């Protein structure tokens, strides 16, 4: 056979191994998320709790850790995927639900709902969060394409940062004079998975599933978009249509995640870059790995948050910020912050 044939398959041969390693890591982290916490538990208690027993304090804590573990996996997947899609669609290495202000936009709508419309059901939060995420995404995209020339990575990040800052101040302005909602609103300022229950997860699950399915549908098409709009059209794709589906997928994923966890930054930024180093720029692989590595990162951040500040806990949002901020600086300082 030709060399072309051999090399093309050769590239793919290593990816299943990488996939296996990432999945194994994810399982290991899931286990530690169940086993490690502010209370030390024994093996018997872990096994007992997994079988549904709640006889000892240890078994009860393990039972409490189950939903937050599931949520950390789902939220990590959603944020990693959402970041990877946003970076691909905008061809912008700095695109991320946090930096583009999409998370804060979601939180902003939820806080408005809490403060002025007396909304206190999670089901409504989810819709508000997704609506807020969508509107903010469009707003930031619009702002960054204003002025001379087209939207560049830098303009995009600036528009997102400015929008984030403005919305955060709005949130503060709304929440500060309102003691009655300050408690619930604060949970949107710092993202966390600690308060998860299976009921709340169930509510956002449909949105996440639709987001995941759309991302599967759009992955291969994003590969054509990566070569420029003209090439994508030349390869038989409808560019506006791909963009719309991809944005919808990204917004659903990060909006639903924000509705239940609050804004968690940097996962969507760091993870796709890491995965691009691992598996290259083919979106079919990149999206799968971004989801899995995102789950790994969020799980480890959550477990780390429980260990480093015992006997209390540190929210994942704080831990990911510590990991993500230096990484963000590294990306910006790289010599070539060019379009993807």
């Amino acid at each position, binding site marked *: 056979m030709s*060399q072309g044939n051999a090399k093309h398959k050769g590239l793919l041969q290593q990816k299943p191994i990488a996939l296996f390693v990432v999945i194994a890591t994810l399982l290991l982290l899931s286990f530690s998320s169940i086993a490690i916490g502010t209370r030390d538990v024994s093996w018997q208690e872990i096994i007992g709790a997994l079988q549904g027993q709640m006889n000892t304090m240890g078994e009860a804590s393990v039972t409490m850790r189950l939903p937050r573990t599931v949520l950390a996996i789902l939220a990590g997947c959603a944020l990693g995927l959402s970041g990877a899609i946003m970076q691909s669609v905008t061809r912008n290495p700095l695109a991320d639900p946090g930096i583009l202000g999409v998370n804060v936009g979601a939180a902003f709508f939820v806080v408005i709902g809490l403060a002025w419309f007396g909304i206190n059901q999670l089901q409504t939060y989810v819709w508000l969060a997704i609506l807020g995420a969508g509107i903010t995404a469009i707003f930031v995209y619009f702002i960054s394409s204003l002025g001379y020339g087209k939207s560049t990575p830098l303009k995009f990040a600036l528009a997102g940062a400015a929008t984030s800052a403005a919305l955060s101040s709005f949130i503060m302005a709304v929440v500060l004079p309102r003691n009655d909602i300050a408690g619930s609103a604060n949970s949107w300022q710092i993202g966390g998975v600690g308060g998860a229950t299976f009921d709340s997860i169930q509510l956002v699950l449909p949105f996440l599933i639709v987001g995941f399915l759309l991302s599967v549908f759009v992955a291969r098409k994003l590969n054509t978009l990566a070569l*420029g709009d003209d090439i994508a059209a030349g390869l*038989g794709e409808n560019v506006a249509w791909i963009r719309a589906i991809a944005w919808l997928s990204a917004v659903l994923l990060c909006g639903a995640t924000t509705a239940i966890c609050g804004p968690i930054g940097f996962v969507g930024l760091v993870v796709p870059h890491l995965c691009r180093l691992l598996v*290259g720029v083919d979106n079919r692989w990149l999206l799968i790995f971004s989801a899995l590595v995102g789950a790994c990162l969020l799980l480890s951040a959550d477990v780390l948050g429980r260990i480093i500040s015992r006997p209390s806990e540190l929210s994942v949002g704080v831990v990911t910020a510590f990991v993500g901020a230096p990484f963000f600086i590294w990306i910006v300082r790289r010599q070539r912050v060019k379009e993807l």
Partner: protein
Amino acid sequence: MTLKHQLVVDHLAAGYGEKTILNDINVAIKPGQITSIIGANACGKSTLLRTMSRLISPSNGQVLLDGKSIHSTPTRQLAQTLGLLPQSPIAPEGITVSDLVSRGRHPHHGFLSRWRKEDDEAIAKALETTKTTELLDREIDELSGGQRQRVWIAMALAQETNILLLDEPTTFLDVAHQIEVLDLLVDLNQTRGTTIVLVLHDLNLAARYSDQLIAIQQGQVCANGTPNEVVTEDMIHAVFGLQSQVITDPISGRPMVLPIGRHKKIKHT
């Protein structure tokens, strides 16, 4: 690919937004030949090529492929017949030659279709034709301009279309690489019978390498025919507003334009 597809531009008007750039264009692209679109800057030659590849929707008239309007043909179906290499394609940082070229197979795949043997064969053939097989594992960023352009052409070839449209494929290349790319297009035209339409800046190269020339002036067809018919002193003056002398290219026997400016002329006294 014995079947030759027919591309016809019929009473076409197009532009960007309110601004009309092309006005009532009628041309038939000769199947199995190389056609170059020439003209002054901003005359609409790129717009014509972009409308022919349905990147721009016409405001009036239509572009017909085998009698059917390309703007109402399903895009994926069209992409199996009509290939396109735009002026400034984007290569994602770190993409390898093999990944890039294999993306040319996109229109031959549906949502769940598997990678087939003919995909590998098409890619191998495209790499061979463009002499890029040895670059397979390299990243696009580390290639020279000429190599990069050959890789992009390989991607367009992997698409295996009967018609290939190229927007200024020789811009930014030095003269040796320009000749290399144009020779490659002739190879392609001769071995595969591919119909090639390109926008070219260099008049003399266009005259040498094309079977058909279309000269555009202010959004209208000013001349259309073989290089011998089109490249005349009068046409050059009409299209470019330039005095010139047209001689016979001693290499190809095609017409060759020698521009006449205000300076640097031998004084006859």
